[in-house]
């Protein structure tokens, strides 16, 4: 059996581990365009911040993992898929045959056309280890560079946190009226914004760049921001071209079912390039988060190896710190809300139809996974003591019998 996986990210790792859970024999070839072993993509900001090193980062899976799992890592780019002949065309002109293929190509930065942007010499996106190295090089060691980041989403803010101590000033521009528009409601977004402003970051929201010169950006509002280094973190686009070429249905992402299978025989897809069914909103969209990439990849891998795995618990969820302020969010925020604010902490629980639909925690985030599990497992709130769990996440809120199962294995008494 020849397994081929296109993409060397977390979804690919999940796929390998899924295959190897069932099949120790088949050949696995990992096609990875980046010149590194797999690394945790979110770590690039921690690298700049000095919280990890390149050496540690590249041990997302230890060097022995490739050997133990008999993975052939080929640093080549796939340029075509022929689903009839079952071959993948590589950038060196060769073709690789496959029996089962997983497309785990992730996403790429989306850079909207902006007037004068081509005149800016010192600019980068913030997606890859090479981007991080390029940024580090542009910043130098002098702490004297003025940095402008376009985009106040997760990637822009993590970049800001990573480089704050390395630059002279940091301005962030976003078209949206609040930071983290995709994962945050206005009030908690405001709390994080105020916290980041207290660390010296300046925000220019509901605004955008009208025009660049090599070292200034004139905003629509008329404000002129001088800068030395530009980071564009506006958004990402899924890498779906190979799937389209192979004949797979592609909407905003590659369409897969709960088995991570595409609608083309022999082809699975996983991670940031693929759609997920979000059970918190009952809608299909891309959930560009690392755990989801693993879950989809692992599901693909098990099914590629002849198993029968399905992944039916996808929800948006995020854990992140911003200059010491921790944020954990999950699910959707449509429904009845329970809000509490206590000394610097913010906590919002959202319920709908006897279920926990979503939550936002800032500051105090201990044991948040107990909440996340209620959403993922769609636990009826009438089956637990909701008043207790609202107070704080705790197993005390479950029935004695349920607790016995959770803490005593299968044994009940």
């Amino acid at each position: 059996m020849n397994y081929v996986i296109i993409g060397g990210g977390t979804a690919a790792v999940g796929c390998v581990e899924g295959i190897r859970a069932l099949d120790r024999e088949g050949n696995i070839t990992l096609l990875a365009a980046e010149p590194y072993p797999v690394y945790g993509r979110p770590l690039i900001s921690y690298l700049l911040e000095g919280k990890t090193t390149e050496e540690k980062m590249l041990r997302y899976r230890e060097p022995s993992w490739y050997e133990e799992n008999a993975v052939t890592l080929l640093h080549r780019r796939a340029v075509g898929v022929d689903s009839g002949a079952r071959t993948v065309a590589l950038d060196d002109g060769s073709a690789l045959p496959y029996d089962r293929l997983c497309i785990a190509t992730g996403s790429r930065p989306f850079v909207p056309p902006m007037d004068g942007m081509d005149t800016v010499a010192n600019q980068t996106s913030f997606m890859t280890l090479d981007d991080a190295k390029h940024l580090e090089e542009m910043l130098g060691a002098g702490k004297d560079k003025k940095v402008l980041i376009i985009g106040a989403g997760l990637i822009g803010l993590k970049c800001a946190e990573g480089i704050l101590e390395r630059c002279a000033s940091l301005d962030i521009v976003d078209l949206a009226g609040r930071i983290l528009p995709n994962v945050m409601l206005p009030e908690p977004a405001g709390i994080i914004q105020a916290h980041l402003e207290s660390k010296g970051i300046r925000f220019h929201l509901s605004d955008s760049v009208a025009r660049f010169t090599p070292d200034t950006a004139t905003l629509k509002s008329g404000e002129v921001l001088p800068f030395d280094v530009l980071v564009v973190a506006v958004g990402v686009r899924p890498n779906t071209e190979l799937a389209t070429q192979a004949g797979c249905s592609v909407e905003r992402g590659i369409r897969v079912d709960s088995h991570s299978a595409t609608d083309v025989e022999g082809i699975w897809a996983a991670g940031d390039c693929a759609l997920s069914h979000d059970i918190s909103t009952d809608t299909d969209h891309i959930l560009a988060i690392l755990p989801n990439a693993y879950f989809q990849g692992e599901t693909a891998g098990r099914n590629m190896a002849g198993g029968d795995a399905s992944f039916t618990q996808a929800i948006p969820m995020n854990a992140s710190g911003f200059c010491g302020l921790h944020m954990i969010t999950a699910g959707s925020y449509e429904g009845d809300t329970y809000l509490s604010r206590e000394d610097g902490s913010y906590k919002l629980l959202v319920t709908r139809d006897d279920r926990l639909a979503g939550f936002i925690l800032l500051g105090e985030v201990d044991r948040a996974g107990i909440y996340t599990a209620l959403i993922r497992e769609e636990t009826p709130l009438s089956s637990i003591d909701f008043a207790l769990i609202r107070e704080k996440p705790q197993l005390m809120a479950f029935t004695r019998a349920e607790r016995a199962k959770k803490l005593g294995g299968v044994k009940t008494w």
Partner: protein
Amino acid sequence: MKRVYVNEKWCLGCHLCEYYCAFANSGQSSMVKALKGRRIAPRIQIEERNNISFAVSCRHCTDPICVKSCISGALSIVDGAVFIDSDKCVGCYTCILTCPYGALTHSEQGAVQKCELCKTNEFGVPMCVQGCPNQAIVYEER
């Protein structure tokens, strides 16, 4: 594999398991030195309310969501038990976001800490179990 199991019926709520855990992972040779005058941060924690109490620590899940979710690869499974390499951990708390038992906590060093069944300290067997006076926590194969 042997795991730590809890029988809440026998739990006295005495918190001795927490103290034994904190001591076992302190690197100190005497319990007094390790704990006296300090706020402890054990990896096993008692939940208590009215007359119910029980201890919660990592279940060493057979299909651990924390390991799959970890952004740095700091969490891994070795012979069925789940370990953390605090050197690789960047303190993002994605594992805290996903663990259904609330079994990981932040540590003072910035990383996350969890029960490793005392396999990485000098004791080798779970000290919480040794310390429990009423066998409300046991270490066994089920």
